[in-house]
């Protein structure tokens, strides 16, 4: 209970009710004083920052919105209309940015795959999804369904992998890489922690090798050299080769993230499990791995975000991911010199998806931490 300060003071010592906080420390004024103007230095910092921010935002807004051109036939037409950004290049090439050169009449297939992706991801990402058990079976089957829908065969026209491009290609590489590297990475982490010295050495060598070389060199190997390692005369699709390399590369990083989790589990957990007579397999599956994975969620998601971002590297070996499409558009004399516009557009796509991934991992961490506290 609060009272006004000028009330008669006939309370016994120590029993005076709390006075209200001074008006300058509550509400908007209090927040401003506390967070923006708490000291002379802070005030100066706020003023300088607001001024710089105003300069930046007003110039950017002019360029991106007020002086921008949304529809025109070429860069020259854009420049003739206004001085700002020329977003017309995005509008003209939007189909390619999304599907690459996937044939137009078949585009319902990637669209369907995307819708099914949401259904397949829901039970994995959110544990209160209705009918979760049944849907998880669908999630397990999803990669095969998606592969069939995208590639074709059995009743559908085959679309060669060279025609995939744009964000579709990013999604294919990202999702296959994530799905394949998770089990592989866990196996490598367990191998590196294993008591069996031969497996430990093999896993360590593989992990250190994959982490020690840049991904681009592995992609070069996939594109130029992998055929040498196969029996003469055999060869397989470039996209498959790239998918294998990307998955192996990400698996090595993932293994290190999971290993951190495994090492963080107190010894008592292992000892308790072995006192109960659990086998190594049962200990791993029921005791240590669930805890290790929970601890390493931030690390695992970082690896996934990294893999997703690194999928752009395929442009260097000539595949048409969004950056490849952007470069193709820029090489067109009609759209010469609009690199900032196109790359910013691609950056927006990556930012939105990666930001969503990292926010989801933070949410999941908080949720699991809440489970711990109960």
């Amino acid at each position, binding site marked *: 209970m609060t009272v006004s300060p000028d009330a008669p003071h006939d309370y016994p010592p120590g029993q005076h009710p709390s006075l209200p906080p001074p008006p300058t420390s509550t509400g908007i004024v209090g927040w401003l004083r506390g967070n923006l103007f708490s000291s002379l230095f802070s005030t100066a910092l706020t003023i300088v*920052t607001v001024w710089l921010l105003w300069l930046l935002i007003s110039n950017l807004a002019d360029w991106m919105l007020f002086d921008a051109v949304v529809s025109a036939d070429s860069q020259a037409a854009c420049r003739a209309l206004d001085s700002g950004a020329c977003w017309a290049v995005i509008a003209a090439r939007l189909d390619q940015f999304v599907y690459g050169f996937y044939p137009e009449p078949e585009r319902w297939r990637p669209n369907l795959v995307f819708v099914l992706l949401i259904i397949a991801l829901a039970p994995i990402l959110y544990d209160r999804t209705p009918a979760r058990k049944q849907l998880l079976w669908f999630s397990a089957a999803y990669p095969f369904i998606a592969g069939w829908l995208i590639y074709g065969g059995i009743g559908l026209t085959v679309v060669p992998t060279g025609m995939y491009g744009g964000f579709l290609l990013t999604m294919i590489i990202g999702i296959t890489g994530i799905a394949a590297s998770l089990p592989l990475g866990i196996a490598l982490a367990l191998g590196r922690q294993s008591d069996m010295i031969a497996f430990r050495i*093999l896993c360590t060598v593989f992990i250190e090798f994959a982490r020690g*070389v840049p991904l681009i060199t592995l992609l070069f190997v996939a594109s130029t050299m992998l055929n*040498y390692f196969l029996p003469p005369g055999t060869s397989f699709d470039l996209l498959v080769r790239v998918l294998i390399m990307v998955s192996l590369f990400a698996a090595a990083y993932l293994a290190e993230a999971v290993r951190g989790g495994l090492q963080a589990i107190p010894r008592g957990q292992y000892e308790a499990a072995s006192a109960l007579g659990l086998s190594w397999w049962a200990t791993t599956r029921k005791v240590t791995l669930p805890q290790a994975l929970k601890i390493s969620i931030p690390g695992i998601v970082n690896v996934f975000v990294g893999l997703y971002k690194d999928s752009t590297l395929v442009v*260097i070996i000539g595949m048409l991911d969004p950056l490849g499409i952007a470069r193709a558009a820029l090489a067109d004399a009609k759209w010469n010199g609009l690199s900032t516009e196109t790359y910013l557009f691609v950056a927006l796509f990556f930012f939105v998806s990666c930001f969503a991934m990292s926010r989801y991992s933070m949410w999941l961490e908080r949720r699991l931490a809440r489970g711990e506290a109960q």
Partner: protein
Amino acid sequence: MTALAIWRQESTRFVALQIGGVLLIFALIAWLLGNVAANFAALDKTFGFGFLWELPANYDINQTLIDYSAQSTHLRAALVGLLNTFLVAAIGIVLATILGFAVGALRLSENWLVSRLASAYVEFTRNTPVLLLILLWHGIIINTLPHPRQALSIADSVFLTNRGVYVPKPLFEDGFLYVLAVFFAGLGATWLLCRRQRDTPARRLSVAVAGVVFSVALAAIAFFLAGNPIRFETPALRGFNYQGGLSLIPELVALTWALAFYTSGFIAENVRAGIMSVDCGQTDAARSLGLPRIRILRLIVLPQAMRVIVPPLTSSYLDLTKNSSLAIAIGYMDLVATLGGITLNQTGREMEAMLLVMAVYLLISLTIAAFMNWYNNRVRLPGR
């Protein structure tokens, strides 16, 4: 013991499993190498590194730190590429560290606006592909910076143009040697004094700081006594481009800046996590002892935070070095673009070239990893 009983023993099973696994891996490797041999025989190819010093490279490199011409060997070209990789890595690491520590500190600022802006910066850099950033900054330099004739100039000595950045080139005269000698003598004396203070790390730091400041001051005095032995050659517009001074090609500027920009976000996050990992009881205890803020940071917080910051910091440096291999996307001639690019295409020695490139990167990674282990052991808290 029957065979079954032996099999039931865990140790036997372990050995059998391991032998089986190793045999399988060796069989796989043998199969792959056999395929390579068969393929090479079918294509009439040989394996060897002779091409490195036998053939002239026959291509130009747009930035060379050592003497190089198209008649030089492929080995020389690879060396030029490697040095270019190191150059990008070195400048990038310095820039990324400065930016990263600054942004990390700003994120912890009590000022709401500043900390929000810093975290927006971190989110943007961490959630965009580094290759995209390289292409974006390269595009900005090429397409939006003015032609040399309308160059943006800073104090009439640094010029920003779409052909590159031109900065004054320092020319050292003989007197500069004395300045250097004085400076390094000061540093040497500081080092000796620091060694004496081995048991009191806090005082050692003060001695080191004082020593460095003193050496710089001495060097400055020597500089004036020797009669300003540095001249600067400022770039000047002649014809269509700037002549003189030090020119940084746009590819170098774009690559180092993009790599530093990208990596600084990760470093900022590490710095923040490191400082937050120091228990606030430590700061409270230091405050109650009456230590001023700056000394709390220097003596209590930073030494403990560095323990957390350095391991991820070194791996950020390593990532930056490995990411510099994306130089090939904008035509900066690093190791991958020379040995793994043009040399590979000209000689058709994919296997040898890629093996060498990978070996070099692996060597760099393992060296940095060894340093990290050494540092971790040095700063590890006893008893943990």
